[in-house]
């Protein structure tokens, strides 16, 4: 049986196709999100990779910022529940998830069964999100995927504000014009992202294992900065951008199974 999870974020679209609730047979990402062609394209890509059609899906669940605009979905579940489900599936020892996406930062506390105990999200400001890193990468003329390398070479991280993206951008520009090395500025940018996320983590209560997911988890500079701030190791979820889509696909599988069991019990009850 195949189920599908679709996660439409603000800046990327992700789809996971799951076989029998355990085997990921497609996990695709397109770096454009809700309101774009991204959702449709990523859906087609995942189906073609798996060699399946939409009709082959027993159930489809959508999640993420654009979850209510996915026509193909049978149901919507919030990304917090899906993130918890997906990460717990991959790392069952997880107690705290730090999820940094395009425009959201979330800290999610889990119980030992993977249920959500508490969560906190950033306020509306883009500081500390993927968007913040995008802006900085443009100003610094360093690709996002190179930022971790620059950070590793930093000798004296610069101070970058974590309260406002616009303010932080002008701070970075003035540091550049003062000749501060890009390496040090990037380490400062990473610290700034980390301080925002760790603030939410502290509100939740920090407990190991700590797992990071979301697009920003691919930037190891941020991961290192978070680990340093929390003084604890941080595990990066395998394929960290698709964990919420994976969670949605698992939810879809569980719901199909629950319906099957329910129908079976009904029949058994009727035959008694």
């Amino acid at each position, binding site marked *: 049986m195949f189920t599908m999870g679709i996660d439409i974020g603000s800046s990327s679209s992700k789809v996971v196709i799951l076989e029998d609730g355990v085997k990921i047979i497609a996990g695709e990402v397109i770096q454009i999100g809700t309101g774009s062609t991204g959702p449709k394209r990523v859906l087609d890509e995942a189906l073609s990779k798996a060699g399946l059609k939409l009709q082959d899906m027993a159930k489809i669940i959508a999640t993420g*910022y654009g979850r209510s605009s996915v026509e193909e979905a049978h149901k*919507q*579940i*919030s*990304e*917090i*529940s899906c993130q918890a489900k997906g990460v717990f599936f991959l790392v069952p020892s997880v107690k705290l998830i730090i999820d940094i996406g395009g425009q*959201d930062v979330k800290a999610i506390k889990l119980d030992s069964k993977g*249920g*959500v*105990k*508490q*969560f*906190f*999200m950033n*306020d*509306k400001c883009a500081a500390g999100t993927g968007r913040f890193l995008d802006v900085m990468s443009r100003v610094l003329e360093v690709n996002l995927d190179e930022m971790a390398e620059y950070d590793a070479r930093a000798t004296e991280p610069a101070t970058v504000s974590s309260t406002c993206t616009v303010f932080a951008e002008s701070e970075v520009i003035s540091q550049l014009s003062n000749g501060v090395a890009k390496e040090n500025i990037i380490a400062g940018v990473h610290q700034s992202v980390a301080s925002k996320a760790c603030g939410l983590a502290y*509100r939740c*209560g920090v407990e190991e294992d700590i797992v990071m997911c979301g697009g920003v988890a691919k930037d190891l500079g941020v991961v290192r900065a978070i680990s340093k701030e929390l003084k604890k190791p941080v595990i990066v979820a395998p394929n960290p951008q698709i964990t919420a889509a994976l969670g949605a696909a698992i939810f879809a599988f569980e719901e199909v199974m629950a319906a099957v069991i329910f129908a079976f019990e009904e029949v058994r009850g009727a035959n008694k």
Partner: protein
Amino acid sequence: MSRIETIISELSSISNNPRKAMEDYKKETGKGSVGVMPYYAPEEIIHAAGFLPVGIWGGQKSISKARAYLPPFACSIMQSVMEMQLEGVYDDLEAVLFPVPCDTLKCLSQKWKGTSPVIVFTHPQNRKLEAANKFLAEEYRLVREKLEKILSVQISDEALNNSIEIYNENRQVMREFTDIAANYPNIIDPIKRHAIIKARFFMEKSKHTALVKELNSALKSLPVEAFTGKKVVLTGIMAEPNEVLDILKDNGFGVVADDLAQESRLFRNDVPSGTDPLYRLAKWWQEFDGCSLATDAKKSRGPMLMDMVKASKADAVVVCMMKFCDPEEFDYPIYYRQFEEAGIKSLFIEIDLETTSFEQTKTRVQSFSEML
């Protein structure tokens, strides 16, 4: 339309259109309205003068002109109040009563941009001393004097004691209403509950009391229905705009009690009995606890909220955090820790009167309902 629906729709239309309520009052009595800024002003003095006390709670607004006077991190409600002042929204008021229990209000009271005269007074924060009662009664005496002058009326002790009784009756009926409404969350959904309570700010209180009393008995005569959603207690300054309450409703939440400064905090205590009305009003402030604006060495807000959760059999607390409200932000970590220790679930949502996008609130509320 049933009587219940008629009363709810009458109160909702008043709460949605305060200007019309003011005009109607003027037509009926020939007297105007006096604005009442948050929080805890002795409205009874205005009532005793025969004028209509009108609550000033800002509104959903995009902010532009107010930016010239307020820093961007001033709380959302006062940003909107300032914007509306600059638009002349409050200029029809005969006067404005302006308590200053927080720093934002203190600063704002010194830069009122409307044309109505403003009467500023102070709540003492060393509240548990007898001197506090004397100080506040004296403040209220000055408020009365200034009002008498501006409105050209005499406000007798007798009239004031009488208004206190009218207000106390309203408080008692409102407490009854919130208890009864908790049994009928299918009928009294979060939006209706809020509108019924908010109408208090724009009606002569005995009229509001009469309607809510009737509503209470009509509700009580109905069988208690099963509620399949989750029951929550709201805490904070206010739970507006209605989109926030809509999101709660859409996700199956019913409000069974509240600790909002705009709602139950105003009527959970009566003004105590006595003969000197100003002293009685002052004493109310001394006896009032569990609010971020009233210094409370015992920090009783958390335990009070937990008692509310227990008494109303609520599933959780929703913290409606007014954006950039420092008194409320300072209280939060204290009661949040108490909730954690007691195993009480809570959700933190931000109240921003300027916003038009509610996606984040939707995600938080939906996740919370999935979590419970």
